[in-house]
């Protein structure tokens, strides 16, 4: 960590001469890094203090937490919400690497708060157009053949189309996260009850104070939908639906009903409040799109990104994440000239369907003002559009499913801001 922060503009000359300076700031100084930098007493030629006495014993933290120097890497909670029972907090995308979101940083969106559910008292009822209505305990659910898959979940309104636009990657599109999920194929559970021929939809209901209700087309339920009880190897966090949620890879987050207590198989959607008055996309002519399930291809540069600062010209890796509800990411292009030209970025393996994909692009900054941005293409050859293109078709009132390219402006002093703001 100290190596990474040893490159302030003041120390740059010394750094380039091969003398690692002790002045702390950062080639890429996010708030978290800047605040953890202290003196020089532990850098060469001195012996670090933490080598001179033993550290904490094994087991001093029965459940491990990040280093105290990472305490600023937390979910971002917008400060302007009218209340926080139905609200969201955002993943700090700009502080993360790879494609897996740590469980404690997974974005959260609740409509009736986070219920505290005793798994021994949790039940899933499966009824409606089935041969045998069933009731399951959590032990029952875990007896089914299990599977683990890596998928993103993204809130439908990430971000909205209207200003003010977020200053950081998290403010802007922090309502997306990705995890390895373990559970049972929903198809197996539905077959256990026996689907009747008229079955066309499954209405999922949560055991939260919103009794969140969404209708899911049967095709998705028989395809890659899962009932999930674990996330990144451990049981779901309460914020993610402990003890059971439904996972609909590539579908808008709201449909991935948490704290799942009931599945009702029906011939028609239920037209719940969340799929009529909310999560419908209003066009400029007053027509609204309903049942807009898929999250389309999208990408964002997470480093360097808004709120960070380039400490000096020279080499900087541009990296970010791309994802598509329609499958795998096929390609990501990066522009470092305000969108005039684009070059293909490297995609980091694994490239998984309906999962975050990490991209990288080596770059030398010449110290001049510049606008950088990324553009994803998925395996259906769908290309991520610009915000202007999206708005030209949908207007600014559709609220949901904004998957626009998002450019960052880098000033000559290295400060990075949202180029759309």
């Amino acid at each position, binding site marked *: 960590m100290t190596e990474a922060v040893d490159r302030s503009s003041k120390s740059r000359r010394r750094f380039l001469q091969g003398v690692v300076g002790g002045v702390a700031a950062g080639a890429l100084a996010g708030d978290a890094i800047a605040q953890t930098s202290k003196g020089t007493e532990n850098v060469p030629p001195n012996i670090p203090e933490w080598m001179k006495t033993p550290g904490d014993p094994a087991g001093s933290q029965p459940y491990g937490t990040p280093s105290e120097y990472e305490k600023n890497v937390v979910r971002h909670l917008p400060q302007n919400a*009218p209340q926080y*029972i139905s609200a969201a907090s955002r993943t700090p995308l700009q502080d993360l690497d790879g494609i897996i979101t740590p469980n404690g940083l997974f974005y959260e969106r609740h*409509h*009736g708060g986070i219920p505290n559910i005793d798994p021994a008292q949790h039940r899933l*009822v*499966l009824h409606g*157009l089935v041969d045998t*209505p*069933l*009731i*399951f*305990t959590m032990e*029952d659910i875990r*007896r*089914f*053949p299990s599977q683990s898959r890596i998928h993103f979940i993204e809130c439908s309104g990430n971000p909205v189309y209207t200003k003010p636009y977020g200053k950081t990657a998290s403010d802007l599109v922090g309502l997306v996260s990705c995890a390895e999920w373990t559970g049972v194929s929903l*198809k*197996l559970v539905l*077959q*256990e009850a*026996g689907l*009747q*021929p*008229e079955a066309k939809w499954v209405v999922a*209901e949560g055991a939260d*104070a*919103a*009794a969140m209700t969404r209708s899911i087309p049967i095709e998705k339920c028989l395809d890659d939908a899962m009932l999930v009880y674990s996330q990144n190897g451990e049981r779901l966090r309460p914020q993610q639906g402990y003890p059971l949620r439904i996972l609909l890879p590539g579908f808008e987050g709201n449909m991935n009903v948490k704290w799942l207590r009931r599945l*009702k198989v029906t011939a*028609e*959607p*239920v*037209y*719940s*409040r969340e799929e*009529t*008055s909310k999560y419908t996309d*209003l066009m400029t*002519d*007053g*027509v*609204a*799109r*309903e*049942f*807009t*399930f*898929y999250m389309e291809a999208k990408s964002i540069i997470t480093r360097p990104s808004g709120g960070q600062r380039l400490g000096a010209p020279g080499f900087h890796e541009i990296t970010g994440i791309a994802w598509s509800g329609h499958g795998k990411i096929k390609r990501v*292009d990066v*522009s470092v000239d305000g969108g005039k*030209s*684009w070059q293909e970025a490297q995609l980091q393996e694994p490239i998984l369907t309906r999962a975050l994909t990490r991209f990288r692009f080596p770059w030398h900054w010449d110290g001049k003002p510049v606008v950088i941005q990324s*553009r994803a293409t998925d395996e259906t050859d*769908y*290309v991520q*559009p610009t915000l202007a293109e*999206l708005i030209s*078709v949908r207007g*600014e*009132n559709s609220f949901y499913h904004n998957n626009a390219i998002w450019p960052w402006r880098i000033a000559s002093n290295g400060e990075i801001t949202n180029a759309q703001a």
Partner: protein
Amino acid sequence: MRKPDLRPAALALLVAACTLQAQAQERYGIGRAATPAEIAAWNIDVGGNDGANLPPGSGTVEHGKTVFAEQCASCHGDKGQGGTGDRLVGGQGTLASPKPVKTVGSYWPYAPTLFDYIRRAMPMNAPQSLSDADVYAVSAYVLHLNGLLPADATLDAKSLSAIKMPNREMFVGDPRPDVKMPACTKDC
């Protein structure tokens, strides 16, 4: 809802699809049969478009005004004008304007959804605490505030299902991908 006369045809389709058939035969014997009483107690969904599964009972606009003042006004405003909770009233004619106001009256396509949502999720600090009669009443009051019920109206399953919301015909399916751009790489 079931149409037994259609089942032989559907069964034939299933048999034809032998992979489906093989999967359908695989049962694990997990879980137990849910009793009708268990299902009935949790099965609170109301069909938004047809009012299916609306409970017996009724409520008046007048009683709804009282319930609203006690249970709803602190968040939604005494006339449904909004506060920490959504605005519920007005906005008709604004949806195609630069500043659309989406309310029960201006935007919601189906009236029974109002009953369903209030019963399952409202008031936010005590969901599922209102009686069905109170839910009918407060639904009636919100519809009245939007000019969709007269002041002396009584609402029950039949009358709630019969209300045609002003914006019902304005919803369409998902036309995406609706924005198609070529992947320009030079001189963009």
